């Protein structure tokens, strides 16, 4: 079950999967997919992690696309772990992505991992403004009406840490949608410096759960 809230007058749904849905615009937004992460690590002589995270992440994205049938999809940056990862994408993943993109307005926002052109279609933007909201990868403290990603926020409640959305009156920060992604605790100074009270964390998991911040 999703959690509905408003930001700059727009009614948005935080989905339990970590994706964002904007019904009025029929817009689905996901951040930090980090597709091709295991391939990049292996290429650089690091660990040989189970090479299934791209499949799994696309599988989860597919489920959200099927459920919400969006007209527009925004991938909010760090969609690929690096530019070479786009080229290293398995054929199956490439086809799956093409199927997802077909018939939709699909925008890739530049991230710090995957700046520059992407060679698999869709529109490529540094940032994009729709109605009252601006979508960019990294939050800008001086801006408002903003939706961003980048930080992979996580919150520990009753023992287990879960990825979460962060919301205040000016901005929304999305959790990482990708499978092989670590997280930054919401009490990290990098995140607390971005949020003004009263702020809210929305936990992902079986259902989207809002929790007021800061936790005591």
């Amino acid at each position: 079950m999703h959690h509905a809230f408003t930001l700059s007058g727009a009614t948005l749904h935080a989905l339990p999967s970590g994706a964002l849905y904007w019904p009025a615009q029929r817009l689905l937004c996901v951040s930090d997919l980090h597709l091709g992460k295991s391939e990049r690590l292996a290429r650089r002589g690091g660990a040989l992690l189970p090479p299934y995270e791209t499949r799994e992440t696309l599988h989860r994205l597919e489920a959200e696309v099927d459920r919400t049938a969006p007209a527009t999809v925004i991938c909010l940056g760090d969609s690929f772990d690096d530019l070479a990862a786009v080229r290293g994408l398995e054929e199956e993943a490439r086809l799956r992505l093409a199927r997802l993109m077909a018939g939709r307005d699909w925008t890739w926002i530049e991230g710090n991992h995957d700046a520059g052109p992407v060679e698999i279609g869709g529109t490529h933007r540094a940032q994009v403004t729709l109605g009252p909201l601006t979508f960019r990868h990294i939050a800008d403290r001086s801006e408002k009406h903003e939706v961003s990603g980048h930080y992979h926020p996580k919150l520990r409640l009753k023992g287990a840490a879960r990825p979460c959305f962060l919301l205040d009156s000016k901005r929304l920060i999305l959790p990482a949608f990708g499978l092989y992604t670590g997280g930054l605790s919401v009490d990290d100074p990098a995140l607390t410096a971005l949020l003004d009270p009263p702020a809210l964390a929305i936990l992902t998991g079986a259902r989207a759960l809002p929790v007021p911040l800061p936790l005591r």
Partner: protein
Amino acid sequence: MHLPPPLTDWFAAKGWTLHPHQQAMLDRAANPATLLIAPTGGGKTLAGFLPTLAELGQTPRNGLHTLYISPLKALTADIRRNLRTPVEGAALPIRIEDRTGDTSYTQRRRQRADPPHILLTTPESLALLLSYEDAPRIFQSLQRVVIDELHALAESKRGDQLMLLLSRLESLSPGLRRVGLSATVEDPPALARFLAPTGCDILQADPGPDPDIAMLETEAPPPWSGGGGRYAMRAILDEVRRHRTTLIFHNTRAQAELFFHDLWLQNDDGLPIGIHHGSLAREQRERVEAAMAAGQLRAVVCTGSLDLGIDWGDVDLVIQVGAPKNVKRLVQRIGRANHRYNAPSKALILPANRFEVVECRAALDAVRDHTLDGEPRGPGPRDVLCQHILMTAASGPFDANELFTEVTRAGPYATLTRPQFDACLDFCATGGYALRAYDKWQRLQEKNGLWQLRDPRSAALIRQNLGTIIDTETLKVRLKNRFGGTPLGEVEEGFASTLTPGDTFLIGGEIVRYEGLREMTVEVTRQPGRDPKVATFNGTKFATSTLLTQRILELFQQDAWPALPAHTAQWLALQREVSRLPSPDRLLVESFPHDGREHLCVYGFAGRNAMQTLALLVTKRMEEQGLAPLGFVATDYATLIWGLDPVTDAAPLFDLAALREGLETWLSGNAVMKRTFRATAIIAGLIERSNQGRRKTGRQATFSSDILYDTLRKYDPDHLLLQVTREEAERGLVDFSRIEDMLARVEGRIDLIRLPRVTPLAAPLFLEPGRIPVHGTGRERMVEEAARRLMEEAGLA
């Protein structure tokens, strides 16, 4: 084989004569493999070194002659001191040095360039040495390897790794002779096969007289629950006063800390007493070891870190606080006292709570009857082999056929098949996935028939990950000041994350105040005289042996307990009155409400690991039945499960066929398996162990190994590491065979008793650490409730 005359003269001057088994070791110096089994205090270590001293003689040739390997850093330092005494006394030009994780960088580099005659080290440091390209040069002159405390090493993956390293050494220095030194074990031939599968002489020294061992009874009864034995502080101080030097053993580090703190509060005479455990900073440990060696301490409060054969000279009393869990280990600990051959060791066992009174009684009976416990280990685990293959690759290109032959010369891997070996090699090279994703980015590549690292830089990563000891994540603790501050030790990361500035906890026997976290270091200030929070160190937990649990169940069947102190006999009688006492041929299950939760207590007496598995399987069945279990805790004798709803029919929960089926499917998503997987993945080199110094602050670059486990389960269920995880679990952590034994014993005779409150026997379980959450509907309900409450409080609902 004869000792060099100056050494014989020095022995004679000191009035030393060789024990028969020491002479026997000299006589068998040419043996390719010898296992010496001798009680502590029998000069076992010297016996191992005598042939070396004889061979090196008065004019030793340059180069490494003998490698000594012990499981403990402290032991290598101790042996270095003890061995140097006769060598320097006889003015023999023999260089003896140790090399451990504590050895300085410059010293380690010098040792590689110019090895000493005798090098004292640990399995992990040896693995590191062998991973260097110059290993063949370092070890070319090696003649002998002496492995101390082999019985302890053989119980863990460290021993499996060490045996692989020995095979490697043997390839580098053909004709290498190996000696294993061991305390009394239940199955000497099995240990000999472990050391040298192709044939090994077993030499048994005279076991010496029976120990003088009793339960320490106090005027005040032990508490109903809990551990640590602090109730008996006065009695213990009296014993310390009555003896020259006392070792006070605890089962966990946290207990040792608490005990030591209280001991000092009551130590009115200011007796010099120290503390020693593995979480303390090296400087702290070394200070205690040196003071002990110099005879300046009257007692040392310690844990398993002092379990092994460190020579404490004048120890004349050992006190074991808490039930020993295992008769064999108790016997070995007792051996710490009276390090003189042919004098009985003196020991006292102090039960920490009333249940342990029963357990200690059972252990004393077992010692008296000379019964030792022990379960045979299976073949060498393959995650250790994967690490060994990577280590070999780091040292240089290798031939797969030769490496396979070498590996199967190691005792634990004697039955390894070629396909099994090839699967491990494939894992190291490509990750071994069903999806061949990394053929382009292989870690190892075969070139001209030799396997080698694709990227030579990965050798550094491999070296960082060597070793099979997997610690829980810990943070260093330092006194706060401008210059970084005195290191005090370390605490678990999980514990550190619960601290807020102003909190106090115990470390190294002193109370400190948490000030904050700086660059992954816990900064503290001294804060005497406050009530501390307790540091939760990761103490090793052993499962009580089958032998001991069986003896306990039999003891329960007595009509009265004259051999037990009155308070404990009364407690058992009370349990019999309000509920029942567990018996060998029935399964007692109690159900009662407590603190707003429903509880189920299952007295299976199958040992900690099996009881944990039982809890996992039973909570899964409860989840299926909608009983919303929230978590459980397991001890050696019982499992306590709490949840939102009561259990009214126990029999369906304990159906063996259903449990066995559950075991298979359950492997998918539980915390114990994930923990096992993490250890296996680190050992096999899939993920890196986090290095405290290197870890980034702020953003965690790493993600949980649980995600990898779940991913493999879903996409690659037959992957090598999942196979190893399963094997591991079935062998040790899961211990399903003991559940089967228990249910076979019970044959369906399950007694579910509904009670209004906690029973006497169940009470201790509420203070047991290591509570494991069940992630099911119950927890989901609670997280939702907590979130809703927070929203309401914030006026946002």
